[in-house]
């Protein structure tokens, strides 16, 4: 979206610039605007849900390795007097915890009422992103709910094309091709991950097969052995009792 700034200013300011310095200043301002607006854009209202004070909400992302995830969240607290949700509350933070497929914590940080967390996966699999509020002032909640706006971008969607275009100085066509390359990259990674998952599935099925096979054999042997033992034991018992 910030690419808008770059494009508009480039197209519309067709009149010749006075000096090189003025152009540099304008370029600087443009870039500053680009980044500022991009930061603003990431906090634009999105999907939201309600969370209680001690409640922990977890989301699962099944991703291949070397994939970047950017999560943006924004919290709002319900004000009983005004009966509406306040835009931002001081002192209200969220604790974000990210676990990798092996249950190892890869990100565990506390952010303010608005935050942005970024992490890159190193092992493919199910990553768990958990959020819970760290409100120490119980009075803030008073039985109400906290509204959390959440937006999680995965893989190719994390790329900020405006930044890439500005940094690498790409033309329109080049940027489009770059976007296609990123998409294809993501598809390739997903396919690799798919292969790894299929292998795991196959191993699990074969292990189940082995277990069922061994168990049937062992069970039959145990049954036969127990039968023999029972009969022999009872026979000797009855013979001792002089009943047989």
């Amino acid at each position: 979206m910030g690419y808008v700034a770059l494009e508009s200013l480039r197209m519309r300011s067709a009149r010749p610039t006075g000096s090189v310095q003025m152009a540099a200043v304008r370029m600087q301002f443009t870039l500053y605007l680009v980044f500022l607006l991009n930061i603003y854009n990431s906090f634009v209202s999105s999907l939201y849900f309600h969370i209680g004070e001690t409640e922990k909400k977890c989301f699962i992302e099944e991703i291949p390795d070397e994939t970047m995830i950017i999560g943006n969240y924004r919290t709002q607290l319900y004000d009983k007097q005004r009966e509406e949700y306040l835009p931002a509350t001081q002192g209200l933070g969220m604790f974000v915890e990210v676990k990798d497929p092996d249950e190892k914590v890869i990100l565990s940080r506390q952010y303010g009422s608005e935050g942005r967390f970024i992490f890159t996966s190193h092992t493919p699999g199910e990553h768990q992103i958990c959020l819970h509020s760290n409100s120490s002032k119980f009075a803030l909640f008073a039985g109400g709910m906290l509204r959390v706006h959440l937006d999680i971008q995965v893989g190719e969607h994390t790329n900020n094309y405006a930044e890439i275009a500005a940094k690498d100085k790409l033309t329109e066509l080049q940027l489009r091709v770059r976007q296609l390359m990123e998409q294809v990259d993501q598809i390739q990674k997903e396919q690799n991950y798919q292969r790894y998952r299929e292998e795991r599935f196959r191993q699990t099925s074969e292990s189940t097969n082995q277990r069922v096979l061994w168990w049937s054999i062992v069970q039959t042997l145990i049954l036969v052995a127990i039968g023999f033992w029972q009969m022999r034991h009872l026979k000797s018992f009855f013979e001792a009792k002089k009943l047989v």
Partner: protein
Amino acid sequence: MLFWFLLLCVQLMLGWIRASELTFELPDNAKQCFYEDISIGTKCTLEFQVVTGGHYDVDCRLEDPDGTVLYKEMKKQYDSFTFTASRNGTFKFCFSNEFSTFTHKTVYFDFQVGDDPPLFPNENGVTALTQMESACVSIHEALKSVIDYQTHFRLRETQGRSRAEDLNTRVAFWSIGEAFILLVVSISQVLLLRSFFSDKKTTTTRVGS
């Protein structure tokens, strides 16, 4: 400069088009609702799939700001629903696992509001695209649908795989458990029989069967 800044701000406001894709766990007897502010005339799509748990079904309900139910399905495994927002306001959709007593469900949903933002601002038909650019656009759309199919395939594969892993652990526990039960039952049978005969020392009659 201020004019450009305001223009950019306006353009930014128009860019409230998002796709939210989340996978979350729904405990038994629980209901989880999500809300989104949508402006009138926006075409939205809600797609959900149950990934793990029980019979892979969940209740889904979509309401508009007036409370009118736009979509309501009980015990659905996978569905896709497209609608156009008839008014401005907060739309709400809920997933419910209240019919289940002890199975947790993992639900994936993808809520697309509006179309994806174009890479450039002048894509709304102001200037014509060159052949290369329109080829790029069509490839982009095709790749997007490939990624979408991949996601659904991945979810189905996860379903199958988690079932297989459950089965594997259950077979292990059951086999050990049954061996144990077998031994316990047979030994206690013998002991019980012995106890029948040990008490009656005075009876001389043969106990026949």
